[in-house]
């Protein structure tokens, strides 16, 4: 059965985020004064063919740990849903 997976890759708490802080510093000149805590990450979507949701999650978890992230500096939040992602092409 097909599960759609959405992975948000984020820098771990406490790890410097130069890109996020540079964007944040630029915002006041554009008139966005109240925006704080900008963090930049990556968003990755894919489908997994697995027996059930927990198997899909386990596989996505392993994929994140070994390939999509470096746990040294990055965390991943994994969302798993039944069914292929809308608009996904093969």
């Amino acid at each position, binding site marked *: 059965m097909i599960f759609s997976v959405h992975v948000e890759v984020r820098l771990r708490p406490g790890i410097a985020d130069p*890109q996020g802080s*540079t*964007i944040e510093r*630029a915002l006041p*000149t*554009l008139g966005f004064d109240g925006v704080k805590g900008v963090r930049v990450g990556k968003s990755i979507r894919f489908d997994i063919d697995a027996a059930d949701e927990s198997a899909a999650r386990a596989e996505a978890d392993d994929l994140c740990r070994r390939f999509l992230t470096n746990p040294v500096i990055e965390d991943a939040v994994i969302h798993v849903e039944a069914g292929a992602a809308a608009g996904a092409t093969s």
Partner: protein
Amino acid sequence: MSRRVGVVVFPGSNCEQDMLEAMALVGAEPELLWHGDETTNGVDAVIIPGGFAHGDYLRPGAIARFSPVMAAVAEFAAAGGPVVGICNGFQVLTEAGLLPGALQKNRGLKFLCAPAELRVESTDSILTRSAEAGAVLQVPINHFEGNYTCDAETLAQLRDENRIVLRYVDNPNGSVDDIAGVCNAGRNVVGLMPHPERATSELLGSTDGLALLRSIVA
């Protein structure tokens, strides 16, 4: 004819000193323009040099385009003043809407510093007017996001109006239609990814960039 050329410095620009050195070689009087100043300081031409303005964070040029100096540059360009964006400067000009299209990551998804051959496709621009049509120039490239992209309509327009001024002989980065440099409709704003200032001395391997730089002050 006057030859004062302003070279814009953003935090993170890094080719500005090279531009000063190279423009002096072609007889210009180059000076630096600071990103935070709302003026082009009365110069006769503006160059936006290579580098990593604002670290290229978010997207190359995405933050730099909002610098105070860019409003002045847009005004200068609208009045017909010559504006050339090289590498990161090209990226800034596309983000600022002064040139069409965008620069994506290279096809090979790697930064690429290498020699390149460029064909002069049009001599009707402020960067190519002193070059020879059809000439092949050795000018190095040095970029991660140099893959020129635009929609089909824009591409057709660029072709129809002869606004593709430089093409790669051997496309290094996946640019559509081998585009290395384009100009605006007024032909006074030109962007290119290769670095003509790096091809200004036999010791460094090529002097082919001089013809382009001379055009700016011709």
